[in-house]
């Protein structure tokens, strides 16, 4: 996949829950191999954007394409890390079994030897190989989040989507997570969703903000600039400040026009 290929494209996408509009003619795109951040306050519509690109919701108007296909057809190439704020501590399951879920392919068959090897690699990439035999319920919140990253990586995804991955995470786990993401960057497109609208990790290539835009609600590309007054442990390394007073057109990225897909 070349640098000019587009991994995610929203073309004039509108969406509403009943009479409640959430997105109004939202257009943005993310290139293959990029590390993108989707930011916005709680309730802005970030989760709706995620549901649309994961094929869990359909736009009222406009078109969403993921890896050049409709989202439903691209699912097998997407690694997804949900926010997963709650889980059932009484559910008996080991870390390996959780990660193995990333190898699921619809209703087809049971797991095979290739799946075991992919799970082993994913555990190693997410730095949780030492937890493989532990019960999932026995882990700390940060460890569970990294296990869910491993589960997403087990799919060997072309697109990795992480919803609020650092929520309730301790500094050490956060640092390890961004270390993992830094290692993956370039080999897969990464979209990280966060309610922190002020700063993003320095791994970020493109920042998109969801929220009120004029008469409607849309997605806008912003510039981000390095800052040196933010403690490095907050974002697993150096941080970028999101410059909300800058609004870049959708085709502002280097060497890109709408025909870039």
């Amino acid at each position: 996949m070349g640098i000019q290929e587009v991994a995610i494209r929203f073309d004039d996408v509108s969406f509403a829950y009943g009479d409640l509009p959430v997105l109004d003619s939202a257009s943005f795109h993310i290139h293959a191999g990029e590390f993108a951040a989707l930011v916005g306050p709680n309730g802005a519509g970030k989760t709706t954007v995620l549901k649309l690109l994961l094929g869990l919701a359909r736009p009222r108007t406009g078109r969403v394409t993921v890896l050049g296909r409709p989202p439903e057809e691209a699912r097998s190439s997407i690694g997804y890390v949900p926010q997963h704020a709650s889980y059932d501590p009484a559910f008996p399951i080991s870390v390996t079994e959780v990660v193995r879920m990333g190898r699921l392919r619809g209703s087809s068959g049971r797991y095979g030897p290739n799946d075991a090897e992919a799970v082993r690699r994913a555990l190693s990439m997410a730095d949780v190989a030492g937890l493989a035999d532990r019960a999932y319920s026995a882990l700390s919140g940060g460890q569970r989040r990294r296990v869910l990253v491993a589960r997403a990586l087990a799919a060997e995804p072309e697109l990795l989507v992480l919803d609020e991955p650092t929520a309730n995470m301790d500094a050490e786990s956060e640092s390890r997570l961004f270390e993992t993401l830094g290692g993956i960057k370039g080999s897969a497109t990464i979209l990280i969703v966060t309610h922190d609208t002020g700063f993003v990790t320095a791994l970020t290539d493109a920042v998109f903000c969801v929220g009120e835009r004029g008469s409607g609600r849309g997605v806008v590309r912003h510039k981000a600039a390095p800052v040196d007054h933010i403690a490095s442990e907050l974002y697993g390394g150096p941080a970028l400040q999101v410059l909300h007073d800058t609004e870049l057109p959708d085709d502002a990225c280097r060497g890109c026009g709408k025909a870039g897909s």
Partner: protein
Amino acid sequence: MSGYLTALVDPAMPFVRNALVAGLLSAVLFGTLGAVVTVKRIAGLAGAISHAVLGGIGMALYLSAKGIVPNLPPIAGAMVFAVISAAIIGFVSLKAKQREDTVINALWAIGMSVGVLFIAKTPGYADPMSYLFGNILLVSGRDLVLLAILDAIVVFLAWRYYPQIEASAFDEEFAKVRGVPTDAIFLATLAVTAVAVVLLQTFVGIVMVIAMLTLPSGTAGYAARNLAAMMVGGTVLSAVFTVGGLAASWALDMPAGAVVVVIAGAAFLSVSAAVGLRSGKTRTAKPLGKKKA
């Protein structure tokens, strides 16, 4: 106990052997299906289906006694009500979550009320007690065949679709993203539960069947490392509770279904208390700290 063993081998008492076989066949359903019901937290839905079944039983007794549908067996009415209840609950759960509790409780109450009304208007004497609390000594050879067939279907489905069942119960949204038909799995679980409830109500009755779908698997869940182990553990425990309950009920001259449920409940509460005490001691002795991977 020796009296029970003597009865088991007595050629004049085939119903005692039938009861034992029914209990062991039921254990497979209690363990396998019960584990899914427990981890998916749909015991309330299963409870509503099981109680709504009384409406179908009452209706069948009434229609048969009045000669409107001669010889209509109660199990046919039960099956119709169970499937309709499962369909309504499934639809409401998927499409109108905000009304889920109300609809489930309404089905629960209306089903039982309709059953009581039909039974009250049925000519002759119809004892609702055997349906409410079960009478395993009435299990027929046909019941055993049906239970064995349902056992085979449930075990096959659990084996074939284990990864999908596990994923949809653990994290439904993620399972959907991986293309797992989570709604279909949910509806299939409800449908199988509905059929199982009808067959199992002969054993422990419609009031207590939900107890046996949750207590053995819940007890096994404390020691199980995964869902499969919970299914196997739940099946083994159900078999132990069943055999123990049948022997105890024979010795004490008490209703078998109630004795089995009391044993299963006592085991669950004892294990829960032991686990609670142990985890309390662990917290006191070792304050929780951050663990490094």
